[in-house]
């Protein structure tokens, strides 16, 4: 359990970092990048290959990130003069190209066989108690920073809303979410019983589950509409309550992280990697927040909205787009190094287009153009992943591969519901979507 949660934290951190890169490119600059995984692939392979040749890990990872940034430059130079939808297509192509190179250039990457037994960071590190305490404090500091930011974002969204409306909508939203969770649990408990007793054939159970799922979704969407007419801050209430639920989940995870750091020697490489990834996310988050609030970030937002205006006001739009692609690529490249260390083997298959799709899910879920939203999105995504990975097997009589596909389907469904209910994502600003020209 503890080992799994450490892994969960690492994955969450890696994808938060990865998503932050995409959020800079798409959320803030409006560049549609459907090949984000290319940066991760390049970062991962470069880091691993260099470290196998004796380059120190830190330098290898930095070179990996720099290579990813360079890929951003190349992508930009060749495609940014094209319109955004063409850019989207070309990015898909580049990502596939990189993956195919990794698959076929066996002299370098060992192809589908994959690279194994490469050095891992902090693997032979055995800190004494004071060092561990310092590590725990640093981790807690980073996490506290995250919570402080989340609180700040929530407070900003609450500004100017009367306390009574706030309380009512939050309470109603809480009841709503609890009822939703309860209905889903009841359905799964019933399904589990049926599965255990073999009372129904698989197809009937599957169909029943599907129908129950659709009924629950439709029913709760209807309820949400009703709530929207009853409570003036209904949507915001829902966002707040879900954000707070995720935050509590995060606190629960933090407990395990502290425990793991305290027992560092039990699993040194994973614990060290966890510490490193959380720290990197915190640093990247802090740096990005400063960037997007600076005049530089203002130009990016202007480009996202209307690049002709930015040009007319003397901004070198092409240059800024390149910078956004490169910085986003750099962050994703770093995430790639962490990804390789977490998996301890790198295969080309691990870098298929689904990874890009996951990053998009995270950014859209949390709210495009909100870094705090991306962190939240990553937590929700991996929370969902864990829940369904262990939960679904118990209640649905399907093979593992079919279950995997089913889980992705449900993510698609959730995204669709989200788009209908709150297109700006959980922490996005509604005005940024609804205000026309």
């Amino acid at each position: 359990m503890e080992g799994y949660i450490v892994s969960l934290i690492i994955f969450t951190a890696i994808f938060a970092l990865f998503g932050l890169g995409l959020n800079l490119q798409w959320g803030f600059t409006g560049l549609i990048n459907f090949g984000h995984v290319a940066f991760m692939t390049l970062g991962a392979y470069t880091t691993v290959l260099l470290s196998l040749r004796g380059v120190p890990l830190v330098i290898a990872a930095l070179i990996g990130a720099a290579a990813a940034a360079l890929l951003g430059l190349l992508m930009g130079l060749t495609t940014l003069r094209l319109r955004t939808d063409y850019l989207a297509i070309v990015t898909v192509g580049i990502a596939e190209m990189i993956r195919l190179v990794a698959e076929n250039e066996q002299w370098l990457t060992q192809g589908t066989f994959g690279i194994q037994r490469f050095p891992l960071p902090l693997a032979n590190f055995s800190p004494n108690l004071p060092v561990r305490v310092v590590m725990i404090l640093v981790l807690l500091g980073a996490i506290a920073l995250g919570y402080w930011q989340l609180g700040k974002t929530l407070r900003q969204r609450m500004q100017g809303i009367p306390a009574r409306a706030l309380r009512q909508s939050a309470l109603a939203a809480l009841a709503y979410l609890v009822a939703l969770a309860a209905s889903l649990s009841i359905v799964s408990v019933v399904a589990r019983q049926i599965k255990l007793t073999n009372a129904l054939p698989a197809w009937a159970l599957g169909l029943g589950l599907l129908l129950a799922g659709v009924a629950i979704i439709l029913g709760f969407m209807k309820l949400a509409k009703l709530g929207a007419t009853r409570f003036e801050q209904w949507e915001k209430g829902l966002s707040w309550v879900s954000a707070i639920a995720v935050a509590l989940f995060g606190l629960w995870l933090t407990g395990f992280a502290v425990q793991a750091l305290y027992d560092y020697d039990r699993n040194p490489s994973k614990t060290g990697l966890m510490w490193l990834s959380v720290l990197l996310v915190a640093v990247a988050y802090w740096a990005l927040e400063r960037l997007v609030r600076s005049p530089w970030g203002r130009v990016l937002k202007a480009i996202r909205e209307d690049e002709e205006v930015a040009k007319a006001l003397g901004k070198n739009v092409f240059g800024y787009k390149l910078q956004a692609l490169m910085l986003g690529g750099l962050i994703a490249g770093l995430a790639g190094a962490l990804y390789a260390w977490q998996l301890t083997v790198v295969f080309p298959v691990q870098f298929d287009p689904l990874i890009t799709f996951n990053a998009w899910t995270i950014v859209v879920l949390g709210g495009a153009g909100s870094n705090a939203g991306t962190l939240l999105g990553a937590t929700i995504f991996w929370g969902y992943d864990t829940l369904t990975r262990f939960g679904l097997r118990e209640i649905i009589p399907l093979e593992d591969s079919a279950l995997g596909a089913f889980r992705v389907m449900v993510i698609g469904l959730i995204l669709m519901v989200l788009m209908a209910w709150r297109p700006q994502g959980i922490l996005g600003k509604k005005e940024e979507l609804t205000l026309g020209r």
Partner: protein
Amino acid sequence: MGAIAPTAIPSTQPLLKAHSLSKSFGGIKAVDRAEIEVHPGSITGLIGPNGAGKTTLFNLLSNFLRPDSGRVMFNGAAIEHLQPHEIAQRGLVRTFQVARVLSKLSVMENMLLAAQNQSGEKFWNVWLNPQRTLQQERQQRELASEILTSVGLFHMAQSYAGSLSGGQRKLLEIARAMMVQPQLVLLDEPAAGVNPTLINQIGDHIRRWNQSGVTFLIIEHNMDVVMSLCDRVWVLAEGRNLASGKPSEVQQNPLVLEAYLGQ
């Protein structure tokens, strides 16, 4: 406000001069060997019937479109090979026919965006030079507040620009162009779709900025505005120069009357 006064240039030399500019779209010659001169300190008008190529000429002057042939001289230097943003950086700013405010940014952010030479627009300065960035932001904010106050938009500074009315958007777009501290502003129909009271206000602002040293080139269909504001008017019809001169002269010109009214 601290616009750059064009005193450095002798008044005989035009600030902006286009020579034999042409642009075709397929077989249609949108602009055909057009000439235009804008003298420093003037308010110059550009008129012509619908489809005469006025906006295309604007796009050529600001290089949002590349001319097929011809020269554009600004401040004595050729600019037709420059990128649009480089032209803006040299002090030639354009607005758009349909006001293009950045509706998802606040009014103040729209203004601040337009300031030139901001050290904070280089991302490394966010860490390497935060003090200078902050100080510049403060200065720009003051200047922006001043301009917004003068056009009566200051009370909206923190609102999203998308919440402005059509007329206010026009005002914001012109105010934003002034934030660049330009030498020459190309205004594309500043009075289109604006109520008469606001038209007068916009005219007053233009005159005031002109007196502080900013030169204007204005496309406008509203003849009252053209006649009251402009020192000199250029007439374009079917992409060609038809006439130019003082507004009163141009108004009497039979060629111009014919182009506007038909035979």
